């Protein structure tokens, strides 16, 4: 055994507060989710693409000196060129401008519907879940029945009755679309309302409205956001579908669906006119779906495999 002389040791003392102090900065739920999302390359690429899309939807139509509704019958069905970057359609309208106007409409429809679905679904699901019992029973039976009604068929019927137009699409799709969100929120609220912080809030005399809005919904925000991200591409797809069968928004306003529909008239000669809106619909659907997957992994770590 080697003798180690005592003077080689130094008493530094025990500092309780120092050993207990947190070295790394504490991370909130949202920071943590963002950190996880940043590691997901596919989701980040999707996010970047979507931001690009939004910027182009805002500024794209002003990048070329053409109006989206301006017809030029001497220059119909032109291929890609320096003047018309994406060519022109069968009425000589500049497709570059129309594609980005279409992006505006398609994105507006998608985001608005997702937002309205969320507002209605969260309110309805929150109330049903919080009050439980007979209230929940009746409210959820109504949802079950609405859920059984074929979505697209009801939307088509509503479009026939209310007439075509941007807001009719939105109304029709929100009337049928909020049900899924209501189910998700109810499930979340049912789990959350048994927890202690709700009991504490109740004891302090918080009203049911306050508990739902301030305590339950913020804790269920993860699944709500994920569900909204998946609602957007669904809405864009449904709008494209409706436009394709001629029930979409009215000309000269364009959405990607109406652009695809316009292109079918000249499909055999100029397939490019279909490929462009088709490409944007597809990539946008893909980006939203991938971002949704990424957000689900980031916001709900329990779901990760």
């Amino acid at each position, binding site marked *: 055994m080697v003798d180690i002389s005592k003077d080689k040791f130094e008493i530094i003392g025990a500092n309780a507060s120092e050993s207990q102090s947190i070295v790394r900065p504490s991370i909130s739920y949202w920071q943590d989710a963002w950190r996880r999302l940043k590691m997901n390359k596919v989701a980040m690429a999707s996010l970047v693409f979507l931001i690009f899309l939004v910027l182009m939807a805002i500024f794209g139509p002003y990048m070329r000196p053409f109006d989206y509704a301006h017809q030029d019958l001497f220059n119909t069905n032109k291929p890609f060129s320096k003047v018309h970057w994406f060519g022109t359609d069968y009425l000589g309208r500049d497709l570059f401008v129309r594609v980005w106007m279409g992006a505006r409409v398609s994105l507006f429809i998608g985001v608005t519907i997702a937002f309205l679905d969320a507002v209605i679904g969260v309110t309805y699901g929150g109330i049903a879940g919080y009050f439980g019992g007979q209230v929940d029973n009746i409210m959820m039976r109504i949802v079950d*029945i609405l859920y059984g009604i074929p979505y697209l*068929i009801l939307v088509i019927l509503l479009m026939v009755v209310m007439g075509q137009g941007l807001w009719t699409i939105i109304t029709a799709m929100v009337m049928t679309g909020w049900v899924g969100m209501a189910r998700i929120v109810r499930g979340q609220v049912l789990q959350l309302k048994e927890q202690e912080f709700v009991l504490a809030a109740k004891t302090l005399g918080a009203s049911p409205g306050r508990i739902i809005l301030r305590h339950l919904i913020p804790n269920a925000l993860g699944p709500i956001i994920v569900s909204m991200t998946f609602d957007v591409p669904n809405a864009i797809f449904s709008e494209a579908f409706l436009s394709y069968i001629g029930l979409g928004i009215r000309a000269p306003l364009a959405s990607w669906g109406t652009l695809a529909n316009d292109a079918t008239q000249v499909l055999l000669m100029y397939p490019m006119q279909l490929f462009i809106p088709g490409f944007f619909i*597809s990539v946008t659907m893909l980006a939203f779906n991938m971002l949704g997957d990424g957000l689900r992994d980031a916001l709900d770590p329990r779901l990760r495999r």
Partner: protein
Amino acid sequence: MLNYSLKRFVYMLITIWVIVTLTFFLMHMIPGDPFTSEKKVPEQIRQNMLAKYHLDKPLIVQYGYYLNNLIHGDLGISLKYLNRTVDDIIKQSAPASFQLGIQSIILGVIFGLLFGIIAALKRGGGWDYFSMFLAIIGISVPNFIIATLLQLLLASKLRWLPVSGWGSFKYTILPSIALSFSTLSIISRMMRTSMLDVIGQDYIKTAKAKGLSQLQIIWKHMVRNAIMPVVTVLGPLIAGIVTGTFVIEQIFSIPGLGKFFVQSIYDEDYSMILGTTIFYSVILVVMMFLVDIAYGLIDPRVRLAKGGK
């Protein structure tokens, strides 16, 4: 199980009733009556015509007549095709749609399962990437784009198959592929995930240890367990295929019900829209019901959880 089925059945009836009522009152919210656009007729004749179709009665009485007719399977008379009942048109055009739908479902389910199983067994291999590629296309590209691309490439350019129309089997190939695409991709993706879950389970090791052949393990232990989650999505997927026929029939000019439905929207043929909407809804709701029951039959856990209490 009987209890559960009965409950689902009652729900199905209520759903159908809600749809019928909703469509009826929605259609009657449209201003005017079917004879407003006709050429000027004397007021007396107009009144007689309204009386013949009970349109002079209060709405609730009309609703009663309508329900009564529906129960007897009478959907009314088309406003566009004179002297043809909606029943007639449906009877004539539904078989084509039906064949298309069935073929697509079979195609989508069988190949979806097959791709999913192979992708899971050969994880990381070429098949896996191929099925992932298919899934990405299936999720993101709308079926009308896929249909037009197939038509353009295989029929119009390569001339392997007829461009459009309806007749022998070869006319059905392209539309069926286009229609089944999203079903195929979603099922293959779900089956892959679900198979990977099962492959890691202990009972697979047990099966291997007791010397079962590879094929027996795959069929009896993996596939049978992995298929459960896939059955649950079948309902929405069938709904997708049925609504998909609206555009696919349009693109391939197939004289099916979907084409008539879309045409009736252009024609503003309200009784036709009303009739076909109800017909489609009933078919879909019944399909959903059958899928639910099938799920209960396959998976005993569902019966115990939902019906047994």
